[in-house]
């Protein structure tokens, strides 16, 4: 439905997007995950026709956009990162305007806005000025504005920035409903939790380049271990060789630092007993044990050598 192929864009000497390719199919949510400044918004802007790419192409239903007035633009719905709403107008007035921009008649818009406002739970506030809305309500209206003309492809650029957990969950529910309706959603975020919860496929982007494009399971499979066992040891004076631990079956990594042993395992149910048994043989006593599953943070760390939060 949406195919991005070898997309590139530079602003002066800085390459914002470098040879980016991915696709979004019908009924799927694809996450574009990366730190701030990774090139996510520029990529979305090129897909929406707001920025002319230096190279590559964007195909919507197999066809490239041909200019500002190309009716193919109606196949796209943009939900920008900013709250792109006129605060001085009511919710209904905003939607009437956006309907007119997409060539919808007043009657068509009236039907569509009723449906869009109901979808995001703002029917009761249709006549109220947007300036009186909470941050979460504005975000939901922002989503409704992008959905109004019923586009099959939705471009969502960090649509949950600055909202409370309740509104965020409401937006997630909306997006999952849209997926069920068969829409193709491209979702940019720098929150790994959002990508983990929502996305069928995740494209990790850093410094303008795609560093991974896979399902969540596929990304985890790239980790040196999918589970991490953290063992705090007593301060005993008996030393031991960590290399011996690394040789145990199912152990992918082992590090000892300041009486804290970190062990990477493929399978925690099989690996953890073996590690503990080996540890008791060394004479050191375990004072605390914690098990942690691998996540996108660790994936990003493994792929780029940097933390997603610090990048």
């Amino acid at each position, binding site marked *: 439905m949406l195919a991005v192929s070898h997309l590139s864009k530079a602003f002066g000497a800085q390459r914002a997007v470098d040879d980016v390719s991915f696709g979004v199919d019908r009924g799927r949510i694809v996450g574009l995950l990366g730190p701030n400044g990774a090139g996510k918004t520029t990529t979305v802007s090129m897909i*929406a*026709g707001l920025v002319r790419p230096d190279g590559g192409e964007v195909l919507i239903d197999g066809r490239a956009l041909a200019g500002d007035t190309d009716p193919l*633009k109606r196949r796209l719905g943009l939900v*920008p*990162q*900013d709250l792109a709403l*006129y605060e001085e107008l009511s919710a209904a007035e905003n939607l009437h305007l956006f309907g007119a*921009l997409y*060539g919808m008649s007043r009657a068509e818009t009236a039907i569509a806005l009723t449906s869009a406002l109901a979808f995001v739970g703002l029917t009761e506030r249709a006549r109220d000025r947007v300036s009186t809305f909470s941050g979460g309500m504005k975000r939901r209206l922002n989503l409704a504005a992008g959905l109004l003309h019923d586009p099959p492809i939705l471009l969502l650029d960090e649509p949950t920035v600055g909202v409370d957990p309740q509104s965020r969950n409401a937006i997630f529910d909306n997006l999952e409903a849209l997926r069920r309706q068969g829409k193709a959603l491209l979702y940019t975020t720098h929150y790994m939790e959002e990508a983990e919860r929502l996305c069928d496929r995740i494209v990790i982007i850093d410094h303008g380049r795609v560093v991974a494009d896979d399902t969540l399971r596929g990304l985890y499979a790239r980790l040196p271990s999918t589970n991490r066992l953290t063992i705090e040891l007593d301060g005993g004076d008996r030393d031991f060789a960590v290399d011996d631990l690394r040789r145990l079956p199912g152990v992918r990594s082992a590090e000892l630092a300041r009486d804290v042993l970190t062990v990477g395992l493929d399978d925690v149910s099989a690996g953890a007993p073996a590690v503990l048994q080996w540890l008791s043989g060394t004479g050191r006593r375990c004072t605390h044990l914690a098990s942690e599953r691998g996540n996108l943070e660790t994936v990003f760390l493994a792929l780029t050598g940097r933390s997603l939060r610090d990048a």
Partner: protein
Amino acid sequence: MNVRAIVALVRKDLRIFFGDRRAVLLSFAAPIVIASFFGFLFSGSSDKAVASRIPIEIANHDSSAISANLVQALTADASLAVTTATDAAIKDAVRQGRIAVGIMIPPGFGEAAGRAFFSAQAKPTLDLLYDPSRGAEVGMVRGILTGQVMQTVSQEMFSGQTGRTMIDQAIQRLDRDSGLSAADRTSLRALLESARHWYRRADAGPSAGRVHGLSIPYTVAERAITARRNVAYNGFAHAFAGMSTQFVLFASLEVGLGILLERQRGLWKRLRSAPLSKSALLAARTASGALIAIMTYAVSFAFGMLVFHIRIEGSAVGFVAIIVSCSLMTAAFGLLIAALGRTPQAARGVSVFGLLLMVMLGGAWVPTFLFPPWLQTVTLIIPVRWAVDGLEAMTWRGLGFGSAVAPTLVLLGFAALFGGLAIARFRWEED
């Protein structure tokens, strides 16, 4: 072009404009209030009875009839408000700006002026203290004073006691003057005796030999040239033309800043993502800006017409053409601000400075005829000048449509120039 989208965008802009009632009131009321104020200041008056008099003070240290008559004549002048004061009081009053001019008549002024009238003897000096910031009033007082001194001194010399004494003294000096030839002495005696005879006739009856002194040998019939003979000059027409244009320009600033604000708030991105041409987006902005400008003109002039009796004495079509072309010019100027500005905050300061310069040099505050000649020529490159002059031509000057053509075309030219520059420099790409 998507007309429905353009109409929706224009409607949105108008809705936002009218949504802020305080701002609307300010947009419409501010030009009216300031134009009314300037109108009162610069309206002038065809009614001489209510014309404001120039305040002057006089200290008369001379006891002669000439000086007394001079003070009396100045007091009677319709253009002056004369009071008498001491030298020190006059100096203080001028320094504090309470009066424009103070006149100090020195002792012996009348006698010395009489002697100087018929001979090349030393002329007496009148001390004139003046406020240098009120040059126009000083010039006017100087002119009136010259006329009144000439009239008073000559009147006294030809009919007053001072004149008789002077003639008697001259005849006595003639007999003692051995430097004159006999023929010259005879001729001069005949002249002076004739003058003495003139005085005696004047003494014989009130109607004989009456002399009013020298006066300006002409009178001036003044007639203000306005639209028609019975149409008085209405200074409010200039004030409303100037102030409306100024506030319309400030409204255009808001249009420009509005676009920058939309860009900052991500709205421009949403608008650009719709299947709309760039020209449609700019046309909508231009249309809404021009409509707001036209409404500002309409409200201001409607008030001026109702309250201050401003009339379109010239071509109504020309009046509308100038307003529409000026509104388009200001809307295009708003686009230019949006094209050149990076952020609303940065653009505001520079734009306000530019606008103030434009309205000041364009004659929106004070008429351009008060400018030096070179500046009057230079200001032809300012669109405001054409708008104000054009609106004045269509109101109190009562000129026909022909006189609206040049301002209209020039304003449309400026609109095209500003619009073209805006399109060329507009940042379309969103990152």
